[in-house]
């Protein structure tokens, strides 16, 4: 194998799902020892292509060569045997197994008895070699996402992977962790490994990759381009197919009266452990308060206590009326609306139609219902009106909500919540996993709401989003608010440091 033989050469790959051509004659060439970015919007077909390279999906047609040798994978085992390892977008870890057990899963050694102690040692050695530290005896569910990702990387390294596929590895990380990951990636290529790095964040691609392949709707729009001389704007155009506005315009606005007031709120998470440890905050009308933090530091619980979905201790008031520990209907009656973290199971009922999902909050109010029956003709008109106003792409209002793409589903939820004229909107990760176009749309809707005087609590892990939308930013860590700043004089590094629990001194 000469050093000029590409590590991977995929040619004319076609992969179909029912009704979707996910990869349409895709070519990809990974050179030895490079970091190759695979860029594309959500649904462009990046994960699909890489799942084929990892042996999980079988292409309808096309050829794949690994180190110059033609391969045809029937199972992930075949791909692993050729030195290919994949860190999946949604981690493939067994939560109740230990780190070591997860790494050993599917291996031929040990043959029968586990002897975990001995293997814990081996894994510690591997951790030393790459600077990826995590306790081998810890159970996965006890670990933060960053550590889980290190386990995924260790899993591929333990199998002797020479070619690493990382599917949106940065999506779950805080800024400092992203920097660490990039250092790790560099140290892996220095040790001779080749990496395919999937992302839809342009600055990361520019920061770390040598070359880039861009996918748009299953088609390659740039094949192995060198990143030299490419700007963010060029890349965005290749990815989206049109010019993109990078930040939404925010108008000046004076904040009004206090709408949400929380005082010393404590709550437990699903495991019964303390999740909120004395949260106090205020959101005024016409103001967006951003909550920054690494996932799992109490954000979900914060949103749930305000919307009545979780019990808590302490005081929560909306316009001076107490709503803590009241059922969600009380919060709704006082004008609290909720954009939940989980669009598909909490935010909507996927098997019900768009209409049913639209009227979920006002089905029993005139003109749609009278408390006993629902006027479906009016409900349909209502849904149709909102569908047009919010530009929701779907065949018609009878389409099940589960058939909508992420962006359109989120628009549906926003349409429903905004049309109830909220005083407070609790938005949790409203743009997570959406593509550039949809993010623009959702962010503009939130700013419109702010303009019309709604108080907005915006919980997000995207610092860029928080900085461009919020008036103030509070940082949550370990269930406590550890700092608050005005968005205009916020420093991204300082916030990042607070998020990870570090301090300046």
């Amino acid at each position, binding site marked *: 194998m000469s050093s000029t033989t590409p590590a991977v050469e995929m040619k004319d790959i076609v992969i179909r799902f029912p009704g979707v051509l996910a990869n349409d004659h895709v070519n990809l060439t990974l050179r030895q020892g490079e970091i190759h970015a695979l860029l594309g919007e959500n649904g462009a077909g990046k994960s699909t292509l890489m799942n084929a390279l990892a042996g999980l999906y079988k292409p309808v047609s096309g050829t794949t060569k690994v180190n110059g040798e033609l391969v045809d994978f029937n199972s*992930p085992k075949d791909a692993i045997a050729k030195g290919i390892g994949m860190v999946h977008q949604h981690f493939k870890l067994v939560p109740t197994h230990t780190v070591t057990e997860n790494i050993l899963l599917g291996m031929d050694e040990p043959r029968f*008895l586990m002897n975990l102690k001995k293997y814990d040692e081996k894994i510690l050695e591997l951790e030393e070699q790459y600077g990826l530290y995590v306790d081998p005896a810890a159970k996965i569910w006890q670990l933060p996402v960053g550590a889980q990702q290190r386990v995924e990387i260790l899993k591929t390294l333990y199998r002797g992977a020479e070619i690493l596929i990382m599917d949106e590895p940065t999506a779950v990380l805080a800024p400092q962790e992203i920097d660490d990951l990039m250092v790790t990636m560099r140290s892996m290529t220095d040790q001779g490994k080749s990496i395919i790095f999937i992302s839809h964040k342009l600055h990361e691609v520019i920061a770390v990759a040598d070359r880039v392949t861009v996918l748009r709707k299953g088609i390659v729009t740039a094949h192995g381009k060198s990143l030299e001389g490419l700007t963010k704007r060029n890349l965005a155009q290749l990815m989206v197919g049109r010019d993109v506005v990078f930040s939404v315009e925010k108008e000046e606005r004076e904040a009004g009266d206090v709408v949400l007031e929380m005082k010393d709120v404590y709550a437990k998470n699903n495991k019964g452990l303390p999740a909120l440890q004395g949260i106090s905050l205020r959101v005024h009308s016409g103001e967006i308060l951003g909550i920054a933090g690494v996932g799992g530091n109490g954000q979900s619980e914060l949103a749930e206590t305000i919307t009545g979905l979780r019990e808590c201790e302490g005081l929560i008031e909306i316009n001076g009326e107490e709503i803590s520990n009241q059922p969600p209907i009380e919060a709704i009656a006082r004008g609290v609306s909720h954009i939940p973290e989980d669009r598909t199971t909490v935010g909507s009922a996927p098997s019900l139609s768009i209409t049913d999902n639209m009227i979920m909050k006002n089905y029993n109010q005139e003109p749609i219902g009278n408390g006993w029956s629902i006027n479906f003709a009016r409900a349909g008109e209502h849904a149709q009106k909102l569908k047009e106003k919010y530009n929701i792409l779907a065949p018609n209002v009878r389409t099940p909500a589960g058939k909508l793409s992420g962006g359109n589903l989120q628009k549906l939820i926003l349409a429903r919540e905004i049309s109830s004229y909220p005083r407070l909107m609790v938005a949790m990760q409203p743009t997570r996993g959406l593509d550039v176009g949809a993010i623009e749309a959702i962010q503009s809707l939130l700013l419109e709401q702010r303009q019309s005087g709604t108080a907005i609590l915006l919980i997000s892990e995207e610092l860029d989003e928080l900085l461009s939308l919020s008036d103030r930013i509070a940082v949550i860590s370990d269930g406590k608010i550890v700092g608050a700043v005005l968005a205009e004089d916020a420093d991204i590094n300082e916030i990042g440091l607070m998020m990870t629990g570090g301090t300046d001194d």
Partner: protein
Amino acid sequence: MNFTIILHAGVATGTVLLFAAIGEIFTERSGILNLGVEGMMLLGAMAGFSISLATESPWLGVLVAMLAGGALSLAHGVVTIHFQADQVVSGLSLTFLGTGLALVLGEGLTGQTPPLLLDYNIPLLSSIPVIGPALFQDHGILVYVGYLAAPLAWYYINKTRPGMHLRAVGQKPSAADSVGVNVYGIRYIYTFVGGCLAGLAGAIISLSVSPGWYSSQTTSGQGWIAIALVIFAQWNPMRAALGGYLFGMLRRLILDLQGPRILLGFANPLYINSNYSFFLIMTPYVLTIIALIFGSRAVAKKRAGSPSALGLPYVRGERGK
């Protein structure tokens, strides 16, 4: 009432529950819920009984009983693993199928006397006072095997490579699949193992513990109790064994309490007469429900044993798995 007698009987009947429950633990740990235990047990009881009658070999009967239970469970496997049908519906149908087959094929077996499994004493151990005669005397070999089965099953599940793969497939099949573990294969194997052990449990009833063929009364709902025991035991074979033995003792205790007219100087409220016997027979099942309520609570509280993919068919590439 004599403690040794109650313990002796409890261990014998408990062995039936132990094998059935351990079998179901294996199946459920792989993510497959098989509610057909009662049907597989009854078919096993019938097969063991009739094969022993025909061949004069009770051990051949035991073997065929296991294969019969196993074969029936494979039907459940094909329907739920391959065709991804609803596991509850398929399992319930399996109960009907197994019960029906056993009743039809067992026609005319009542009152027959095939050779039974013999009882043995364990030297030395049986001379320990009180528990010796209860645990190590006059039991079938399978009772003694049962003593070893629970710790061995526990060790296998928690400390061996195939056990770790089994747990992974039941907890997160997509993770197992992504590293080349054969999810379907493993689910088939343990569904089959569960069926075999249910068949074995049936044969233990009809050839050893309460010998004979009494149509559907032969198992009288013990398959359902075994399923409840799995939840109560939080998918832990050791707890399942303990629960099985306790349950067996309880049944015997209730039987004993039905005898005397006077109990502790009062008229015995449990004294057997035609009016009260319903309630007495009901007791074990009521206790099952109570045990289930407390057991499920404990499961919900801790992340105890419960396989999170239980009851969910696995399809590669489907979101959220």
